[in-house]
């Protein structure tokens, strides 16, 4: 680290001490070591509303202390940005971010690539191997550790851009840490919630305002809805090689005491394999019961992602799904675009949409701690062979600031920087986005996927493969679990 870097760090530590304390206080924490430990009992929809709008920030001023505003340089950046299918507001915020950065740092030349989620990982892997990676990449939370383990990433943490570790969720920080070293900074974090159509609940004789409290109950509700209305109860997703599958199935495994490894435990070692245990079996049995025994979920679950569940949901043919806070905005968009009699049906579904906590299991309530992190590649692996670290840090600071980590995740996620929750922009979000507070209140139950390089294979291939083996009855539930258990153990043995 250069002397200048050290001076910057010292300056930033002093200047952010106050705001960090404010943030720590705002999120209901106190500790002599200034460690952020989220008070789960306080983090509720009411609490999230209470702190919103209590903090003023000046992003340009904060980032100027990391990289002078007149700095001349160049940054290359890849990210999974907004797609055409996403709400217009998200696209607008993304454009505003780039405009604001160019205005704040007019002499930093940007080369930005917005890459589709399904292509970005392969493209980054290939580019890194070919020494043509970008200087910076914002990656979904699951991906970074593989690049860190392979030695592609530079050491970089919140303190490098003037923030403190306390300003980020501990689970998010865990996802950017490999063998004790920090290789990135969280940009946004989100958890999903249970969404249901209260009208279908009513039609099935269920309390329209009370979602299932446990996974056992969800299986029963799903069956009741199918029996009483003929419509699908729960939007099971079991496609292989699609992130949607583990995001919806792992919470069930964790809730019932299972998991891939011990990732849901308070202090995971990632050494113990849980995929064959009783908790995992119970979770797989739930899926089997709904798909094979009760036939209460869509038959197309094996080829579906959540996108394919959106049509039956908006058509009133599917009662419950697990999805992001943005699902409401997506449904509103769909209802707006619908025509004729479809429009009436879609609007009725939107009016009857309800958000609630994801059900509990025998052991806990849990949800995947999702989001993205920003990482910096090493000189050896980037196009041109040199990273303009100062210019790159300017972009990292800007993107992970309370202001922009809030605005960039406006409808789709939550600020990675916890101070973002206390800004006026978060208050505006809460006032304008229905159910955001409910989805946000799932954050303390968030469990990150195992922070190991093999995580992608376990989550995207082995877990969905286990589901498909059981649901197609190619294997029994026990055989599917044993098969997955063998695969995870083999993978962890380094083969």
């Amino acid at each position, binding site marked *: 680290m250069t002397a200048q870097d050290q001076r910057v760090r010292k300056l930033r530590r002093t200047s952010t001490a106050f705001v960090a304390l404010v943030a720590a206080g705002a999120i209901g924490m106190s500790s002599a070591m200034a460690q952020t430990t989220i008070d789960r009992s306080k983090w509720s929809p009411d609490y999230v509303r209470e702190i919103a709008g209590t903090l003023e920030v000046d992003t340009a001023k904060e980032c100027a202390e990391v990289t002078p505003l007149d700095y001349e340089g160049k940054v290359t950046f890849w990210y999974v940005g907004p797609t055409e299918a996403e709400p217009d507001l998200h696209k607008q915020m993304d454009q505003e971010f780039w405009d604001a950065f160019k205005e704040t740092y007019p002499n930093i030349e940007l080369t930005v690539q917005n890459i589709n989620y399904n292509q970005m990982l392969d493209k980054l892997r290939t580019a890194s191997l070919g020494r043509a990676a970008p200087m910076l990449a914002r990656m979904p939370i699951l991906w970074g550790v593989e690049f860190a383990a392979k030695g592609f990433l530079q050491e970089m943490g919140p303190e490098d851009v003037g923030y403190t570790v306390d300003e980020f969720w501990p689970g998010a920080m865990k996802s950017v840490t490999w063998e004790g070293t920090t290789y990135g900074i969280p940009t946004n974090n989100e958890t999903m919630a249970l969404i249901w159509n209260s009208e279908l609940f009513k039609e099935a004789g269920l309390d329209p305002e009370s979602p299932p409290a446990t996974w056992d109950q969800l299986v029963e509700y799903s069956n009741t809805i199918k029996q009483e209305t003929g419509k699908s109860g729960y939007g099971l997703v079991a496609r292989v090689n699609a992130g949607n599958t583990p995001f919806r199935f792992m919470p069930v495994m964790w809730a019932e005491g299972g998991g891939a490894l011990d990732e849901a435990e308070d202090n995971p070692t990632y050494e113990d394999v849980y995929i064959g245990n009783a908790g995992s079996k119970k979770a797989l049995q739930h899926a089997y019961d709904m798909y094979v025994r009760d036939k209460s979920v869509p038959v197309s679950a094996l080829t579906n992602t959540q996108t394919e569940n959106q049509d039956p949901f908006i058509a009133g*043919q599917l009662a419950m799904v697990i999805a992001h806070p943005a699902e409401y905005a997506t449904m509103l968009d769909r209802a707006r675009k619908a025509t004729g009699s479809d429009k009436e049906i879609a609007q009725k579904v939107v009016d009857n949409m309800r958000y609630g906590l994801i059900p509990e299991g025998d052991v806990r309530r849990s949800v995947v701690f999702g989001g993205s992190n920003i990482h910096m590649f090493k000189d050896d692996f980037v196009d041109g062979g040199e990273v303009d670290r100062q210019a790159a840090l300017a972009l990292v600071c800007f993107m992970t600031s309370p202001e922009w980590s809030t605005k960039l995740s406006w409808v789709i996620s939550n600020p990675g920087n916890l101070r973002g929750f206390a800004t006026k922009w978060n208050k505006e979000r809460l006032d304008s986005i229905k159910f955001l507070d409910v989805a946000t209140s799932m954050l303390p139950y968030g469990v990150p996927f195992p922070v190991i390089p093999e995580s992608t294979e376990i989550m995207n291939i082995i877990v969905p493969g286990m589901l498909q083996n059981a649901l*197609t009855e190619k294997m029994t539930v026990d055989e599917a679990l044993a098969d997955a258990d063998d695969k995870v153990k083999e993978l962890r043995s380094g083969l």
Partner: protein
Amino acid sequence: MATAIGETRPTARRGPGLAGRIYKHRTDYLYILPALIVMFVVIGYPVYYVVELSFFKTPPSLAMSEKIFVGVDNYSRILQAKSFHEVTMNTVVWTVFSTLFAFILGFGAALALDRAFFLRGPLRGALLIPFVISAVAGSFVWRWMYNSDIGVIGAFLVELGITDRPLNFLDNTQTVLASLIVVNVWREFPFAMIMMLAGLQTVPDELHRAAKMDGASVIQRFFHVTMPHLKSVTLITVLLLTVNNLNSFIIPWIMTGGGPANASDIWITAIYQLAFGRVRFGIASAYSVILFLVMMVLGYYYVRIMTRGDERRAE
């Protein structure tokens, strides 16, 4: 015929050796030299690298420079794996039936379109549409049409009273491969149609007329006049379809990702999954080498058919 002792065996006229033949055609080789150099760079090196990688283990936790030499372990692991046998069987079924039905359908269409009739032109153009449409777009459309819950095919069958509930096309291990083959045949038959139509147009009309005058029936004329002329084009079409089907990726990957439970996983999707889904470049390379060898055998026969008679003409 035996040769008596003392008799002199007639010696075959020996042509120039390999070096002599190359020298004789040195100008021809110079013309193709630039193409050979480009091929060597963009094909030769990657092939070499894939073969080299196939002898290494590349766990996801290690950078490629730290790959571990394992000899032929990757090959023996693949050949012993139960999943390899399942995937190979899927690949054989996929390739054989896709090729067979695409050819039969394409040949049938070519025979029909070979005769002049009203609207033949527009119909010929319309039949080319599946071949012209992007395979990605076509796959998504078929995926929606097949959807086991809200697919239009299932709804149509229920509406007609043929089935009580929508059929499960893609989410059933028994039906998924057949459903994908239908899509593949839909996409490929126009290719066979074009090839066979071109072949049909080379059959001399005089021969047909002569055979007809000799009293040959339509079927006799087809088997004894038309088919002999189509032998080469048929072989080439079938070979190209086979190679193309062995290399198919888009349709199975987009429609099912190889699922459910690997029931539609074929060699190419398995290789892609191993390399990019599981980051096992070593074992994926070994898989690719096996596929490469199979393709080389097919390629050898393809080149032999294509160049039959060229050697003599070149002398």
